[in-house]
């Protein structure tokens, strides 16, 4: 085994990312639910001028609902398949 292989393997063994890094799905889910709600409300309360500008499509409503759906998809994914617990050897020490 080369020196590089040894060095990186040793660092990998001490690495804390696998055990401690949070799950990005929660953040994507949370942000898109918030954005979805904000933009959907903007769509529900859209003015005539807004609609006219957007070629008579209520783009805020549709985009908002789509973002909301994406956010809920990510939250549902976390809920159904939570982060796999790291193998015992890598379990957090704290």
């Amino acid at each position, binding site marked *: *085994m*080369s020196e*590089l*292989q040894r060095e*990186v*393997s040793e*660092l*990998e063994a*001490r*690495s*804390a*990312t*696998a*055990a*401690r*890094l*949070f799950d*990005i799905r929660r*953040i*994507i889910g949370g*942000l*898109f639910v*918030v*954005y979805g709600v*904000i*933009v959907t409300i*903007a*769509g529900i309360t*859209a003015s005539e*001028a*807004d*609609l006219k*500008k*957007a*070629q008579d*499509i209520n*783009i*805020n409503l*549709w*985009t*908002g609902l*789509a*973002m909301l759906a*994406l956010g809920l998809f990510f939250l549902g994914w976390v809920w159904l398949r939570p982060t796999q617990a790291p193998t015992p050897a890598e379990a957090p020490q704290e």
Partner: protein
Amino acid sequence: MHYLADGLRLPTNGLDYAILAIYFAVVLGIGFAARRSVKTSLDFFLSGRSLPAWVTGLAFVAANLGATEILGMAATGAQYGVAVVHWYWIGAIPAMVFLGLVMMPFYYGSKVRSVPEFLLQRFDKSAHLLSSVLFAFASILIAGVNLYALSIVVEALLGWPQWVSIVVAGLFVLAYITIGGLSSAIYNEVLQFFVILAALIPLTILGLKRVGGWDGLSDSLTRQHGGDFLTAWGGTGIGDPNPLGANWLTIVLGLGFVLSFGYWTTNFAEVQRALSAKNLSAAQRTPLIAAFPKIFIVFIVMIPGLVAAVLVPKIGTAGSDLTYNDAIPLLMQELLPNGVLGIAVTGLLAAFMAGMAANVSSFNTVFTADIWAKYVVKGRPDTYYLKFGRLITAIGVLASIGTAFLAASFSNIMGYLQTLFSFFNVPMFVVFIIGMFWKRASMKSGVWGLLAGTTAAMVNYFVIYKQGVIDIPSDQGANFVSAIVGFVAGALVMVLVTLFTAPKPEAELAGLVYGTKSPGMEEPPQEGDQVWYRRPALLGWGAIVLAAACYVPYSF
């Protein structure tokens, strides 16, 4: 470089700014939350090699989806028409698949932490140092150019003075990478990917509606520019004139083979995302997962460009004060109501910051692991290099803020430098491909291949093309030809040097050359990696077939 016309000021209101503010808060939050996962230098530079494939895959595509790319490709669409698809379907997908299926076992299996480190293992210190130093310089330069481009766009769209956006965006990037390391950069890229989609999809739909759907769009463009504008290959016969200034041969070889393979397979800002994956299977799948969104992103970039070409028939010519780069900002202004407008502004700013962050997070790795730890201060404990990595991240960001201000006063020089660095990518690919497949390629052949290929590409571009020795119709076409010349020259010189110099001892080549295996690679496949939809070969060939199929409607 982007020069946006005046008069593109967006009608933003408090709602849009609230959406933007939420995004900035989340970006910083990710940085702080990722902090507790950083214990070793490997955590900081490569996320401890432990991320899942879908995260690294989306980061892989997002690292490339910077705002200069989005605005630039929409501009290419407005200028050249449907031919812009070449940059995606032939200029990206084959190279991404090659990286995943063929090269990744050597990259990931050899446990190198960076692209230059592979050169050190395979060739020698001179090739390593040359590529490390050039990469470090180029990253700071490109990060600075990105910041400068951001400041111009923000000034035009929101009316902030340039220095405010340079400093604010620079400091945000500094904060979240210095604190959270690569994990924080990658997580923000994944987030950015979705925000960009949420910005560009509505814009594309409204744009199409505005010009009467795809039929209305193609009718108007055929009337204005002729039928070839809406085909991928129309007018690219050898010797035929076309606006791209390239024929099918230079497109396939220059763009599709040399330039694209050089960028996608040896640019560390991209490869780093794959190296941070949790195992070899995930590393292989990183560019393959990225390939699928990449195939379709072209539509939400090209269509706004085409729509802009219909709405402002004179765009990009002397008769209009709008340049091609204004295509997307123009549609944002014309079509998006407050709310979605805020999402679009956020998406653009996020793309600028992520593009810069990708450069900074690869710069700090190469500078610390390849330059500092190997040639300057060697053999310290890991905590020292972790601390140094944080310090150099801060210095790197401050240097790119400086570069951005320089770019503001000397933008021509910056463009020139970017061209220079782009020529370095080409021979990198030659050296990699020969080094990986030819055991005999000698230690010294690496550095000579790099030098010869770069020189040849530069001579072709700056002397033969710029001085008019050979007539090539456009910069774009000349770029493709220079790439081919650099590739051939680099390969020839490598073979010649190899014939006269010593090979690398066979024992040191384990896991670096085709036909050898890294020690320790026998780890059993992780549970679940065997399911059919995670098989690299299927994903890779699937992407190729899909990209080829996408060409069909635009080829006849």
